[in-house]
Every structure is written in structure tokens, then in C-alpha cells.
């Protein structure tokens, strides 16, 4: 029986359940030093000096570094979406000349005890001459550095004749929308343990995540080391969500210190640091308008937005802005389109990607707009969506621009079909009637829909090596990474399915640069698609080889052999002679190995819909999400339990993003959300049962399994659906213009309503 499609229990759970996981802080090696980073207390200013004499005089001090000590290390480069002209905006590993956000590293101290390292860091006194911070991304650009504007880039994606669309429109609907700054905030903070191996000359970095192979290359280049002298090792990772595992200043400092001080160096971020130093995301202001005909068909869509990038451009380059432009049209035809995204430097923590980058934002903007169009024209929002959907028969559907360096071609999809099935499954008619009845009785309750198109499976390649050892174990060596999503289980399922063996023999290796030369890691919902496809190919090859060798040993034609319960048997005589897998490897002279590479220049485009039901408390303006539904077509689910787990977890983050989570800065650029009591993540009390309907109606032809990614489906349109549900609850379509919808903001919205409607 095929293992693909079965909700098997995870292979990775046992150590995690018994306290024997190995997260970054758990890594300890002898003779270790601890690094503590001194950070800017000022949002923007001229760093005129650092007084380090007291710190140097502390008896526990091993070293104190300032920018001068790392002057030979270049700023951190771009992993994704570089566009010309971004280099001046890269972040140095220690601030040099100016500080550009509260939390920016300005010095690093090293001591043999972590408490002592903090004591010493407190003795470092920076001299900073404050300057007027730039906090509003949509304000006029200013000077970032001599001759450099705070507008680092402008991304434009457009097609069709927008002028004609607007001239001939039945109506034009315009909105200004604001999306708050929030981010992944994984439960494990970042960490890095750099170990210089005297015997081999190799520098090993533990605590790696997400993209170990890329970071290995970047670190080797920055530190002037040959590639074969640097290895990265991923242990357990306490959540990724896009932000963990990118290359940050602290990773570089830790490695440089290990090399220069000749001792292992450990750095573990504390939560305050995380909330001011790790990538933030999302913050943007959109001015959008749509030209529509009298049936609600969108003739043209024109969006201009300003992305609040923070103090520097980090490894993601302009990815978030690029994806926002590319994914805004979503599931709708939209014959004429223009999106202009301004990447604006501000004096806040720098930004990168967070789960569903560009799609959370774009879905909020687009689906808000569709609901307002429906209201303006007196049409049912479901009907307006149906009228604008790209037809199933139009697939594959090409947008006339690219994203992440790939052409956007929606591979497969039946958007109207999914919406129909989903509304049927959730009992839309009954839900609406219930809400109407409760509203009649005086409650403020409402429903909101958000449709979205996702993207997944970014290439260009993934390599896999599967080895059958002479003890019968099967090792699947990948260049993927695991950030807690169940990579080992899913890849083992695919491998076992291909080989015909059980899961018990299979061990999946990921995130170890000394085990495989290349690897793309885990981002963009790519692992099951890309690494899964490579495993499929390698497993088929290995099975052929396995049966060929077994055929020789059993003196039987390979096509008469089968793999049953980890043994090769003769198909028509299963009780006759058979061979254990280990015996076959031994018969082949040791190990049996198959290598495979899967390449693609296209992404797959899964799609889905969110539906939120909310209740608003009139006096306190508290918003409760009563029910939350997700319908999603994943092409094919390798492990439905894990796919649902991804979606439910993403939806919880989406509810947080819509109602609770925001990095707030005061007028001087001081971050206000610096503890988990200020940056509010949902607890179980805020999260209802998330009701997931998985569909497999549109498998992709782009990979052998037909799978699409699932990592970002839960969050993509959560902001849109909840905003509409709140509109519906307060009886004002389009009322919500800003996320998160805090009680204060909702109170202000209700105050705008005529007294009779409150």
C-alpha cells in the first residue's frame, strides 16, 4: 500500500518529546566563549565613538570588538532578488559611522561566561549624536547617505491598457490600506555556535537553519576562507517562518571571532534582542484603485505602495516588494494592471520575508477591494469573485511578468470549482442565516471571505543521494532544511513509496553541508515539491539497481521481483527464497547508491480560500474569531495530517497578524514591542478550532508527484477574511483599512458611524 497520502506519525517526534532535542542553545563544546552584542539605543544618529576602556578592564573580558575590528569584513549581501543599485544599503556586521535602528549591533564582547558577557557589554558606552529619524515609509524620500535616497528601489509590474480601462469604467473604487509591521517570531530565538577545528582547519557553524548551503558560501566569501574550510550544521530548529536562518550580523561575528580568538564562540539571542534585531516584515501602505464594469468585472487594477524596509536591505533584497507586485492580481483575470512598489528605508529594524511574503499583503488589498466593489455595485461578493476568476479552461495561465526570477504561469487550477465546493462544505447558506439571525438579535457578528493564489516549489534544483547500507538502512541525504515542518517524515514517505520498503529503515539527512555539496534549503514552500521530486527520481533509480542486484543473487529476472516488508521476494513465489536489503547491498560489494537532481524554472501555484466568522463586543471593541475555515487545493497531499498542521498553524499566525501582532515604534523610533507581553502572539484562548478542507483536484504536471506546497496556505488571506468579517459585523463594508484591527482602531471606526448604527 502506498505511503503517499497517508497521515503517518512523524519520525522526528521522539527526541523532541523526551527533551533530547538539540536546539542551538543546547550545543555545548569545551573551552567555549560567549558573545554578547552591544546594540544601538538610538534609532538614527552619528556614531562618534565608543568608550570601551571599562569593558576592557573587566577581569573576565577576552575581547571587545567595534567596527574597526571588523573593517575587513564586507557588509552582508543578497541571497534573493537583488536589483541594481542596492549595494549601498547593505548592513555592516557592526555599525560604522551611523546607527540606523534601535537594536543595531555596534560592538561585541567576548567572555567565558554568558552572564559575565552581559555584565561587560553593559560597560560599553557609545557616543551617538541623535539625528531626526525617518519613520513613515510613505513620506517624501530623504537622504540615506550622501547621494543616496531612502528610496532604495522602485519595483513596477504592469501589463494591458490601464488608461482605457479607467476611462471606460462604469465605476472606480479606490482604497488606502495599511498593513502593520509584524513577523514570524519563532519560539526559539536565533543562535550560533562557531567551532574552529584546529586539527582540520575547518570552521563549523552550528545553529544553522533554512539555507545552510547558501550561508556557507556567503560566510566563506566574507571571511576569506576556501569553501572546503567552512561547514554549517543544522540541529533542531524551533520554528522558521522565513526569518530564522537568514544570514545576520551575529552569525558573521560569531564565526569571525572563533577564527580570530581560536576558540569556539557561542551566541544565543535573548527575546528582547530578537524583537529588535531579527527580520521584521509586512509593514506597508497601499493606495489602490480598480476600474470595474457594471457587473463587477475588474477592467483594470492600479496599486501603488510603500514598503517599510527598516534600516538596511538584508539578504532578501527586494523580495517582499517584488512578490507583492507579482501576486496582487491573484485568482482574477484583470486585463490591465499596474503595481508600483517603493522600497523605503526607515529607522526601524530591517525587514525580510515572513510566511507568505507578498501574498498576505496582496490578498488583504485585493480581497478588500473586491468586497468594496461588490458593496458599491450592490452585488454579492461571491458573485463578483466568480465573475473575475480565471477560468479552469484558461490554465495554464500566464501573467506578463516574473516573480523570484521565474515566469508566472499558473500551472493548474479551478478557482470557481474550489469556491463552490468549499462553500458547500462549510454550509455557507446556513452560516449566513445564523449570522443574520444573531445580528437581528442585537449581536455584532460577521462573516468574511478571502480567496488567494499561493506560489510554491521554487527551484532551480535539488539534489538527493539515497544510499542502501550493508546493514540494510537507507540514508536519504538532501540539501533541504527542517524548520519543524516534518521534512524527515515526508521525504521518508516518498522514499519508502518509491523503493517499496517500510519507513523504519529510512533516515533523512538535511542541513549538513559536509554531507552533500549543494542544497537550496527550506523556504518558499519548496521542500516537498523540489526535494520530494528529487527523492522520487533517486528512489526509482535505486529500486531498479536493487532489483537488478537481487536478480543476479536470486538468479531471477528483476521484473519478477518485488520488495515486501524490507525484503526482496519473487513476486509469484513470495514464500520462496528472499533477500534482506542489507544482503543485497553486501552482494553489490558494500553500499548501493543512487543520485538524482530535480530541476525546474517554474513554480507551482496552489490556491485556496479563507472564511472567518467574528464577534465584536460593542463596549470593549474586543474581536473574537468564532470560527475559521480554510479550503485549499494542494495538488496532492503526501501526508494530510502534516498539511493540515501547516495550515492550522499558519491560520493561527494569520489571526495574530489580523488582530494582535504589531511592532510599534514611538515618534523617536523607539521600539515599543520588545517583550512578548507587548508583542502579542495568540494563545489558545484566541484561536478557535481551524476547520480545514483539503482538496486534490488540481495536481501539477510540473513534478512527478503532482504536489504543490502547503507551508503558507494558512496565513495567506487571513488578514483579508478577518477584515471583511469585522466589516460585516459592524455593518460597514470596507470600514477596516488597517491591520491589525486592535480594539482602539475598531473603536475609532465605530465612532465614525452614525450614532444609530453603533
Amino acid at each position, binding site marked *: 500500500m502506498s505511503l503517499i497520502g497517508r497521515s503517518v506519525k512523524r519520525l522526528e517526534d521522539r527526541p523532541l*518529546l523526551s527533551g533530547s532535542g538539540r536546539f542551538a542553545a543546547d550545543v555545548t563544546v569545551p573551552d567555549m566563549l560567549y558573545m554578547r552584542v552591544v546594540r544601538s539605543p538610538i534609532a538614527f544618529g552619528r556614531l562618534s565613538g565608543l568608550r570601551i576602556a571599562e569593558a576592557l578592564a573587566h577581569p573576565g573580558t577576552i575581547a571587545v570588538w567595534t567596527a574597526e575590528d571588523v573593517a575587513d569584513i564586507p557588509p552582508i549581501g543578497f541571497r534573493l532578488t537583488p536589483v541594481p543599485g542596492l549595494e549601498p544599503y547593505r548592513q555592516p556586521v557592526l555599525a560604522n559611522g551611523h546607527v540606523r535602528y534601535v537594536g543595531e549591533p555596534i560592538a561585541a564582547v567576548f567572555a567565558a561566561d554568558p552572564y559575565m558577557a552581559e555584565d561587560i557589554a553593559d560597560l560599553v558606552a557609545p557616543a551617538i549624536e541623535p539625528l531626526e529619524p525617518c519613520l513613515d515609509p510613505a513620506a517624501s524620500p530623504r537622504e540615506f547617505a550622501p547621494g543616496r535616497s531612502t528610496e532604495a528601489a522602485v519595483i513596477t509590474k504592469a501589463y494591458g491598457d490601464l488608461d482605457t480601462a479607467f476611462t471606460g469604467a462604469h465605476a472606480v473604487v479606490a482604497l488606502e490600506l495599511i498593513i502593520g509591521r509584524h513577523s514570524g517570531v519563532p519560539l526559539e530565538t536565533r543562535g550560533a555556535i562557531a567551532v574552529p577545528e584546529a586539527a582540520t582547519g575547518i570552521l563549523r557553524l552550528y545553529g544553522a537553519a533554512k539555507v545552510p548551503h547558501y550561508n556557507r558560501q556567503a560566510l566563506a566569501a566574507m571571511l576569506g576562507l576556501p569553501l572546503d574550510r567552512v561547514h554549517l550544521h543544522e540541529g533542531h530548529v524551533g520554528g522558521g517562518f522565513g526569518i530564522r536562518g537568514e544570514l545576520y550580523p551575529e552569525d558573521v561575528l560569531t564565526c569571525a571571532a572563533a577564527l580570530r580568538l581560536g576558540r569556539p564562540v557561542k551566541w544565543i539571542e535573548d527575546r528582547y534582542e530578537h524583537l529588535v534585531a531579527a527580520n521584521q516584515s509586512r509593514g506597508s501602505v497601499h493606495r489602490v484603485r480598480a476600474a470595474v464594469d457594471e457587473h463587477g468585472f475588474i477592467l483594470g487594477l492600479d496599486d501603488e505602495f510603500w514598503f517599510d524596509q527598516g534600516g538596511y536591505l538584508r539578504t532578501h533584497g527586494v523580495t517582499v516588494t517584488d512578490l507583492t507586485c507579482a501576486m496582487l492580481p491573484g485568482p482574477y483575470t484583470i486585463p490591465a494592471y499596474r503595481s508600483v512598489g517603493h522600497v523605503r528605508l526607515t529607522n526601524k529594524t530591517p525587514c525580510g520575508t515572513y510566511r507568505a511574503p507578498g501574498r498576505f499583503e496582496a490578498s488583504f488589498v485585493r480581497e478588500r477591494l473586491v468586497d468594496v466593489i461588490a458593496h458599491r455595485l450592490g452585488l454579492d461578493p461571491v458573485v463578483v469573485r466568480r465573475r473575475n476568476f480565471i477560468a479552469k479552461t484558461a490554465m495554464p495561465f500566464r501573467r506578463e511578468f516574473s516573480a523570484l526570477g521565474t515566469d508566472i504561469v499558473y500551472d493548474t487550477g479551478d478557482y470557481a470549482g474550489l469556491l463552490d465546493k468549499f462553500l458547500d462544505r462549510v454550509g455557507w447558506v446556513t452560516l449566513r442565516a445564523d449570522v443574520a439571525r444573531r445580528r437581528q438579535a442585537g449581536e455584532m457578528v460577521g462573516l468574511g471571505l478571502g480567496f488567494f493564489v499561493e506560489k510554491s516549489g521554487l527551484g532551480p534544483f535539488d539534489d538527493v543521494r539515497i544510499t542502501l547500507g550493508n546493514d540494510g538502512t537507507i540514508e536519504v541525504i538532501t540539501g533541504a532544511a527542517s524548520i519543524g515542518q*516534518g521534512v524527515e517524515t515526508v521525504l521518508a514517505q516518498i522514499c519508502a513509496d518509491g523503493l517499496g520498503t517500510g519507513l523504519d529503515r529510512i533516515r533523512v539527512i538535511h542541513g549538513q553541508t559536509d554531507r552533500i555539496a549543494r542544497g537550496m534549503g527550506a523556504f518558499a514552500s519548496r521542500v516537498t515539491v523540489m526535494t520530494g521530486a528529487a527523492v522520487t527520481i533517486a528512489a526509482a533509480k535505486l529500486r531498479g539497481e536493487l532489483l537488478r542486484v537481487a536478480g543476479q543473487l536470486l538468479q531471477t529476472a528483476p521484473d519478477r521481483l518485488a520488495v515486501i516488508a524490507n525484503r526482496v521476494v519473487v513476486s509469484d513465489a513470495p514464500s520462496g527464497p528472499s533477500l534482506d536489503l542489507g544482503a543485497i547491498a553486501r552482494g553489490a560489494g558494500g553500499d548501493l547508491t543512487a543520485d538524482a537532481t530535480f530541476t525546474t524554472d517554474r513554480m507551482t501555484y496552489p490556491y485556496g480560500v479563507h472564511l472567518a466568522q467574528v464577534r465584536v463586543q460593542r463596549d470593549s471593541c474586543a474581536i473574537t474569531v468564532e470560527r475559521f475555515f480554510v479550503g485549499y487545493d494542494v495538488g496532492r497531499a503526501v501526508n494530510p495530517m502534516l498539511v493540515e498542521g501547516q495550515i492550522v498553524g499558519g491560520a493561527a499566525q494569520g489571526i495574530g497578524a489580523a488582530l494582535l501582532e504589531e511592532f510599534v515604534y514611538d515618534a523617536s523610533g523607539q521600539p515599543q514591542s520588545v517583550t512578548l507581553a507587548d508583542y502579542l502572539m495568540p494563545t*489558545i484562548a484566541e*484561536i478557535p478550532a*481551524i476547520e480545514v478542507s483539503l482538496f486534490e483536484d488540481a495536481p501539477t504536471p510540473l513534478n512527478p508527484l503532482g504536489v504543490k506546497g502547503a507551508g503558507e496556505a494558512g496565513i495567506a488571506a487571513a488578514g483579508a477574511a478577518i477584515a471583511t468579517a469585522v466589516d460585516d459585523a459592524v455593518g460597514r463594508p470596507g470600514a477596516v483599512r488597517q491591520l491589525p484591527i486592535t480594539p482602539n482602531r475598531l473603536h475609532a471606526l465605530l465612532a465614525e458611524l452614525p450614532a444609530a448604527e453603533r
Partner: protein
Amino acid sequence: MSERQDVTFTVNGDKHAIRIEPRRSLADALREDCGLTGTHLGCEHGVCGACTVLVDDQPVRSCLMFAVQAEGARVRTVEGLAAGDKLHPLQQAFWDHHGLQCGFCTPGFLMLAVGILERDPDIAEPELREALSSNLCRCTGYQNILKSVLAAATEMRK
């Protein structure tokens, strides 16, 4: 820095006599001085609950308690839950019901749930939800955690 002090407590039944600074948190003492890294630190300011352990059977944020305050106490951590190869019913239920993804918050949730179910084996779902809202999870969206604890409660009542 300040004078180190002697502290003695038991962890999972084993006696630990350690010499530490008074400012050392119980979590750091467990992790660094007792070598039990199953207790995780997610915020070090008492919000996330990843560091929850049982001190004399009460769930406690070990990041907010000084190790010296545990003098003479009976501490239980995630490492003490399983009996050899046999997982505790809560561990088993988290596995069966996909109650974890990255696993970082899991030890804290397990210890919190052990504390809850030992005190009130028949706890009703609304009260259980309320009690579980002490801890944060960023991956699961909580519903499989709730499912796991309810399943374990049933198992533990048998």
C-alpha cells in the same frame, strides 16, 4: 558578579548539589549545571512558558525563579516523564495527535499539562483551554495540543 552559593534539590528524583551565583535562574541551573537541556528558554521574561517545569508538583516558569529558591525542592522536567522506552501518556498523545511541529515549546506544554492533569484529572475542556493559554506555541495553532491533552486525560483516567 556575586558570591556563589551551594544549593541542593532533586531533579526527576536525582539529587543535584550545585554551586551557583544567586542570580542564576532555575532554568539556567537545570540546563547548564544539571545538564538537562530539555527545558527550553523562549523569552526569559515569563510569558511564553517554554521553560515550564514542576517544582513540588506546581507548574513554574523556571526562567522567573532563581535556582537558590529551589533549595530542597523536588523538581520535575521533561527528561523525567518517560519510563525507560515507555513514553508518558501525554508524550504519546502529543505524538499520536501531531501535537508538535518544531518541538521547542513542547517540553513546556508537556510539563504544564502534567501539572494540570495531576491536579484535576477530570478537567473540563473550557477550563483546560484556559489553563493551556499560559503557554505559547507558534507552529501548531494549538488545536492538536488541546486534542493531545484531552486524549491523554482519557488515557490517564483508565
